[in-house]
């Protein structure tokens, strides 16, 4: 690894993707009738979620099927810390930061007893944890307001400036900025001592142990970092909606969407995850709903025929993406250099 690589802000690929994202509002300005900046904020949220998952799945080689639970923990932590019905009201910025810390703690809590498990068992435990968190949030109505969700939640603020739903551009650029910071952090984590430890554990646990790396400690850190990023994504998403939404918004589907992003984009590659987020969330949140609405405007009634609504192909899309990628390109679209070298 060259010194240049270590100290550069972003890699070329990351710079290209972030730059392209930064130009999205231009599309809104110059193409009439198109509004991309608002839904693209969701893409950014999911990119952050998937970057968190990537630390666990891509770099450490642990299959995590419950990342949505940490997103939920982040969203609800943000909700409880910032909503006016609770006494804390720490504001947007402290809310996001504390949500991330609480998420990291939750990740550590789940990881500590379970990380010694075999790969497929660990996957099922994380899945089970995801379901437990969802049900617990739904049932602990006194704290979480059950299915109503906690609302209203604050939009991001700067001194003398408050984001609002009518003007999505500043909001979009703020989230893009947060994403850029997180990409920068991930990139530095990748080339740090811990990052190299994680790769070592992924490639061969025994060999890593021989190099005086503690796989358990390394995995636990990966879990905590991943959970922290997922929780930050949850907080940002809650702020976007001005509500935590109901607990079932953070269900298994979301975990699988995040997994699809990581796998389709290229396991282990930050640039790949960004591309994967744009492709998968773009399809899921932008293309499919818009296509459905367009068809409805043209008189295709999707309630009469289930096949005529593009929205109904979501599961198929996720499923095919996973099966085909596993079958033909288990390393993803954008090859991780490390995976390719192997």
């Amino acid at each position, binding site marked *: 690894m060259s010194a240049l690589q270590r100290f550069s802000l972003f890699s070329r690929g990351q710079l290209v993707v972030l730059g392209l994202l930064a130009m999205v509002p231009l599309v809104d300005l110059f193409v009439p009738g198109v509004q991309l900046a608002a839904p693209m904020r969701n893409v950014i949220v999911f990119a952050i979620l998937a970057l968190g998952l990537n630390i666990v799945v891509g770099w450490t*080689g642990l*299959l995590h*099927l419950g990342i949505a639970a940490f997103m939920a923990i982040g969203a609800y932590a943000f909700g409880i810390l910032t909503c006016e019905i609770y006494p804390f009201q720490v504001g947007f910025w402290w809310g996001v930061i504390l949500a991330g810390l609480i998420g990291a703690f939750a990740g550590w809590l789940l990881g500590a*007893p*379970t990380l010694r*498990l*075999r*790969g*497929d*068992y660990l*996957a*099922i*435990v994380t*899945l*089970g*944890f995801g*379901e*437990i968190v969802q*049900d*617990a949030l*739904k*049932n602990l109505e006194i704290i979480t307001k059950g299915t109503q969700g906690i609302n209203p939640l604050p939009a991001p603020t700067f001194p003398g400036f408050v984001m609002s739903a009518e003007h999505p551009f500043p909001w979009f650029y703020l989230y893009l900025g947060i994403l850029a910071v997180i990409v920068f952090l991930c990139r530095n984590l990748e080339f740090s001592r811990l990052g190299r430890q994680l790769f070592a554990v992924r490639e061969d646990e025994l060999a890593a142990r021989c190099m005086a790396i503690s796989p358990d400690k390394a995995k636990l850190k990966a879990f905590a970092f991943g959970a922290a990023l997922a929780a930050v994504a949850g907080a940002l998403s809650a702020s976007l909606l001005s509500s935590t939404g109901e607990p079932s918004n953070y269900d*298994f589907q979301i975990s*699988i969407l995040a*997994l699809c992003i990581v*796998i389709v984009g290229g396991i282990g590659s930050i640039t790949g995850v960004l591309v994967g987020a744009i492709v998968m969330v773009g399809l899921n949140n932008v293309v499919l709903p818009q296509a459905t609405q367009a068809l409805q405007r043209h008189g295709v009634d999707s*309630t*009469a*025929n*289930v*096949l005529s609504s593009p929205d*109904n*192909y*979501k*599961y*198929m899309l*996720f*499923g*095919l*993406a*996973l*099966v*085909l990628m*596993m*079958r033909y390109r*288990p390393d993803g679209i954008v090859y991780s250099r490390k995976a390719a070298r192997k």
Partner: protein
Amino acid sequence: MTPTEVFMQQVIYGLSNGMIIALVALGYTMVYGIVELINFAHGDLFMLGGFFALTIVGALGAAGVLDIAHMGDHSNWLLLFGLVIAAGVFCGGLNVAIDRVVYKPMRKSPKLTQLVAAIGVSFIIVNLGLFWGGAPMEVFGGGNAAAASKDFPEILEGSNLLGEDSNIVLRLEDLAIFIVTIPLMIALTIFVKKTRLGRGMRATAQNPVAAKLMGIDTDRVISATFLIGGFLGGAASVMWSLYNNTISFQMGFRAGMDAFTAAVLGGIGSMPGAMLGGVLIGLIRAMSDQYIETRWTNVVVFGVLILILVFRPSGLLGLKQREKV
């Protein structure tokens, strides 16, 4: 109702549901025993079995062959067994086909790659279930609201077998579950213990390479395992639909997780373990519904799953007499 009666009632619920869970769990455990794959799509295959059975009922009804409301004592049992076998064959065949198309080419891939592919298959099947629910048949609500739950007809008349005065209710459905599941489990045990193919399965489960060297056609054994596992799942789906009177394209996830928990609880890879685990999970669910709260039951089941995996990953019967298949 006295506390004892309440308890006995929950035991009946628990055993009935538990036997169904056990059938599904067998499908997980057999496949895991042979190819070490958590067949994530198994629960959703189970869901498709319910839709297939409902389609047959609807088609027979539309053809005028079947009139559920006025069926004799014998014809409804005949219909039930027919549905069990039909859905079983359907799910078994589909399971084999999925194995051939998806899992077989990646048999040598890392385990997690296969698991992710199985999750993908699961999502594809869920989507097929959603489409199936939009079928233009009367039993599916004429194609409207594809995502809605579908009513499954009461094939067996539901009077209390313990007499009208009894506080404890034992329905004909409960009885039917035992009449269907117990012989299936006995037949399966005999098959695995006594037949040539069954012996091949046990050998393949112990050591695939050695089994191949001994002249066992392991590919055929694997197909047979998927076929039998799928058959049991299909049979279970008919009993489940009959018992709950409603099916939905999303029911596979929950049922699958219950069954997987049962398989792990009993010791994954162990057939008696899956049966025991299924009954235990059924009982745990029933007791949790009664003595904790229904809305916490799933948390209890997943809690059991996590605790078992963390503290005793080999399950109750998995460690010493580890007889896979």
